[in-house]
């Protein structure tokens, strides 16, 4: 893993918090790509829910730590509501009206706690641009009732000062890295360490969440992960020979030989001809 590169990316502040309106503003909407891929991430502890989209039950008994989707949603405005399993939509515990879903985007909607521990819904636009050959994308989203954190890889901070509900991301060498999350500027581990298997050509999105309330420390932080595949690129080329023995082009010397052959034929012919006429 190229830590220096990783740090640069983090320092560059590839951090974005997007309101629903912001999502629309951020995403180009080509006419031919009207549907968006929408995933739903459950990061509210101890609270299974039913998810309603435009009044229709879309997810039944959706459990904390689960990821649903992707759903293909037409571009447009959506009402999203979460209820306790089996309860009517009228008694929703959390809802967002007129959420704008742009066309042609890849979005994750996270139901999670804000820094103060209050449930909320945050949409994130997923960066699904291609990664270079050999690379993987790591996206970390702070969706836990916790203060500012640093994300470390192999003990070195790579994303610093991440706050709820923001994200940090970077393209890194594919492979496995030991990562943990610490309270910002400290060595106090909040999550992990865990082995992150960053597969080439994918984006691994890690959500820091509060997993369970009521443990000894009051709350336990954990992660929910979402993976997006198919972001790979082919290598730039396949250089596989510098000897020239298999070259199929015609070497210059063969052209010289051809020229010599033509000259000899012509010269010989002319001499024969002049010799004959000379004898007459």
């Amino acid at each position, binding site marked *: 893993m190229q830590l220096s590169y990783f740090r640069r990316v983090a320092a560059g502040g590839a951090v974005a918090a997007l309101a629903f309106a912001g999502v629309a503003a951020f995403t180009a909407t080509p006419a031919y790509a009207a549907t968006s891929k929408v995933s739903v991430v459950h990061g509210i502890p101890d609270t299974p829910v039913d998810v309603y989209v435009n009044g229709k039950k879309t997810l039944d008994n959706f459990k904390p*730590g689960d*990821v*649903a989707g992707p759903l293909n949603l037409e571009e447009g405005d959506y009402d999203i509501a979460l209820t306790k399993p089996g309860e009517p939509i009228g008694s929703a515990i959390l809802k967002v009206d007129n959420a704008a879903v742009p066309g042609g985007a890849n979005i994750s909607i996270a139901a999670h706690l804000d820094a103060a521990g209050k449930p909320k819904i945050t949409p994130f636009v997923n960066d699904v641009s291609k990664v270079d050959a050999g690379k993987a994308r790591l996206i970390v989203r702070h969706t836990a009732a916790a203060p500012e954190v640093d994300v470390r890889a192999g003990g070195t901070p790579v994303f610093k000062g991440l706050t709820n509900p923001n994200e940090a991301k970077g393209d890194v060498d594919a492979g496995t890295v030991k990562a943990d999350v610490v309270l910002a500027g400290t060595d106090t581990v909040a999550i992990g360490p865990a082995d992150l298997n960053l597969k080439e050509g994918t984006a691994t999105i890690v959500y820091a969440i509060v997993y369970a309330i009521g443990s000894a420390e009051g709350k336990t932080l954990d992660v929910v992960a979402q993976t997006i595949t198919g972001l790979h690129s082919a*290598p730039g080329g396949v*250089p596989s020979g510098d*000897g*020239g023995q298999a070259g199929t082009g015609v070497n210059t010397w063969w052209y010289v030989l051809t020229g010599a052959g033509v000259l000899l034929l012509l010269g010989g012919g002319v001499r024969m001809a002049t010799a004959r006429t000379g004898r007459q």
Partner: protein
Amino acid sequence: MTVRNRGALAAMAAGVAALTVAALVACGSQPTESVGAEEASTLASTPPAAASAPSVPVTAGELPADAETIPPVRLVIPEINVTATVNAVGVNERTNEFEVPPGVNQIGWYRYGPGLETAAGSVVIAGHVDSAKQGKGAFFRLRELDQGDTLTATGSDGKARRYRVVAREEYAKTKIPLDRYFARDGKPRLTLITCGGPFDAKARKYRDNIVVTAVPA
């Protein structure tokens, strides 16, 4: 017959001989014709997805596990007398190009793509056609492969898998559709790549890539 005449005849004979040799060489150096290009591109196309199920897929948001990939470790192509060790390779950090093993008798499997277990996509193996220092490479005669020829790739699991050649194509390196050969979707297939075509002695580079596509036999 005069001396003058004999000299002229000899000159003409030499001329004919020179032309014949040059013509033979020229014919022999014609680039190999591509065969099966259409089959190869059909393999790469993905069938339209089946109508999506009404229910939304839900997965536990666990960290991704190590994928169980079966790397090829040995490749045998009887037709062109190849038995080569396969190394798992990636891309060169500096050039972003396929890291073909430097030893010309070794060939490289693109470890970021699928392995032999795959149900979809292209397993890519590349090898040197030759090298200035080491001479002929494992894939020196790759361009001689033809449709119907068979080859055997053995995986790290010890299992030998047979493949049948369906296409042999030659592309200028500037035009080769690499995305198709490094695709992770489409029918499962084995793609062998080496260099070929005219050689630029100054740049020490071949102009073209030779690509052989094979499917499970």
